């Protein structure tokens, strides 16, 4: 899912230009480090609890878009029921910092229980391609272990299975992980560990100071 900035594009352009015009060298390396992060969308993880009834999930997601949030991923733990008989859902979303309160307000107004919000901020992102017998080795278990061990949220996954599983041909999956700012190297370490364990190859991005 493409991440459309929640702020009006015109506003962002203006602030970018202002940075250029003042020619501030605060960033030092000029590698596109934005010193004023005012309206740059930030990622948030929100945990919700829903009644186990049809239509509940859609009703819960609507207020997010209505209040300027951009959905990144939804993890619907259907098999997992809270002591109160409700279903926990983890939502990753992106929005301008000044919209986040409105998003939470909108959820509560719709009667959605927000169990935690905003504390888990995934400002970084890293994409890897996994190669191996991904389906035969329980893909959802792999993703869950990535989430747990790597301390990252799986934002999305694209799977390209070999024609007909069981052919012995490896499959590939592109996995986009949202990570805490500056923790990409740790996350990649953990991804390698999980992959080693499951006998996958990891094609990781080139790490650089860019």
């Amino acid at each position: 899912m493409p991440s459309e900035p929640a702020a009006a594009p015109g506003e962002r352009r203006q602030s970018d230009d202002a940075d250029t015009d003042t020619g501030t060298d605060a960033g030092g390396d000029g590698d596109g480090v934005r010193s004023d992060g005012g309206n740059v969308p930030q990622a948030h993880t929100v945990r919700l609890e829903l009644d186990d009834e049809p239509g509940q999930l859609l009703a819960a997601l609507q207020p997010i878009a209505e209040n300027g949030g951009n959905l990144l991923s939804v993890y619907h733990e259907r098999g997992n029921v809270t002591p109160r008989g409700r279903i926990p859902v983890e939502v990753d979303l992106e929005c301008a910092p000044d919209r986040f309160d409105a998003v939470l307000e909108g959820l509560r107004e719709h009667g959605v229980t927000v169990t935690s919000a905003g504390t888990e901020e995934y400002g970084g992102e890293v994409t890897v391609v996994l190669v191996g017998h991904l389906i035969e080795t329980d893909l959802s278990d792999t993703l869950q272990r990535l989430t747990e061990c790597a301390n990252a949220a799986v934002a999305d996954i694209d799977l390209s299975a070999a024609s007909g599983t069981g052919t012995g041909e490896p499959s590939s999956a592109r996995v986009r992980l949202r990570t805490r700012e500056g923790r990409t190297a740790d996350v990649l370490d953990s991804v390698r560990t999980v992959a080693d364990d499951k006998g996958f190859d990891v094609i990781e991005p080139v790490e650089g100071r860019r």
Partner: protein
Amino acid sequence: MRLAVLGAGAVGRAVADLAPSYGHAVTALADSSSAVVDPGGVDVGAALARKDAGDPLGESDPGDALAAEYDALVEATPTTLGDAEPGFSHLRTALERDRHVVLANKGPVAERFADLRALEADSAGDVYFEATVGGAIPACATVADLGPERVSAVRGVLNGTANFVLSRMAAEGLDYDHVLAEAQDLGVAEADPSFDVEGTDAALKCVILANLLREADCGSIEELRERALTLSDAAVEGIRDIPGSALDLAAEDGRTVRLVGEATRDGVRVGPRLVPENGTLAVSGTRNIVEIETEHAGGLAVSGRGAGGEETASAVLADVGRLPDPER
């Protein structure tokens, strides 16, 4: 300058051929079975014509070339691992005679760097090895110019065969075996491509670069002996197991896959990596690229031909040009 050229493969031949146009004379030229030696200057064309006709290069033994009159020895015999012989002994003999050595052979630099520096320290001769990394690309010289102590990392695409295979797979949607066969038909890949596609060749180059960075932190040969890396210290993955589907998934996301080697003070890693499709590292075909991360000047990149006789010979002859002039 008078040059003795050991090795008459693509690189040795091109060095001998081009040397006169750089103002140097070839006083000896050897392959593994014979040599031609002439203190007044070898007739390189005639010697290579003899070799092409299936005859010996000349009347002399290969050992005579090593003992001949020369100012610099050009070591362009095939790279060997482990003890890096016989290349290492050639280097030793020349340095013990206080002659300079210019290496195109990666073995002595990647596998016995501290031994090499120890011999150099006891000799009036200097050792240069630009041609061991990235063919025509001035990788070592650029690191030396910037000051290795101010370079934090060097990474790049350092194997043309692997890069050809990956870029063809991505562009044509063909599988590994198909593209490899095509590369072998074109002479881009060897009959046994393992050295290239398993990442060994790229890893040797990265070990050489990492040793240059580590050397900058060492105060003595003893310290260098402890810190110098060899191929066995490198984490290496090749490209054999990459399915077309992985390249497709990368392409859908605006990326592609390249065999990228990275040398830092912490060590060497070589493996297939995701790079932006239009980024600097996504060179295509047999092209190589070296990216240098510096402390004060950000990133620098040099791309060019990473293999080939004349290309590599140009790096050898650039090194010869760096040697002190014996006339002064």
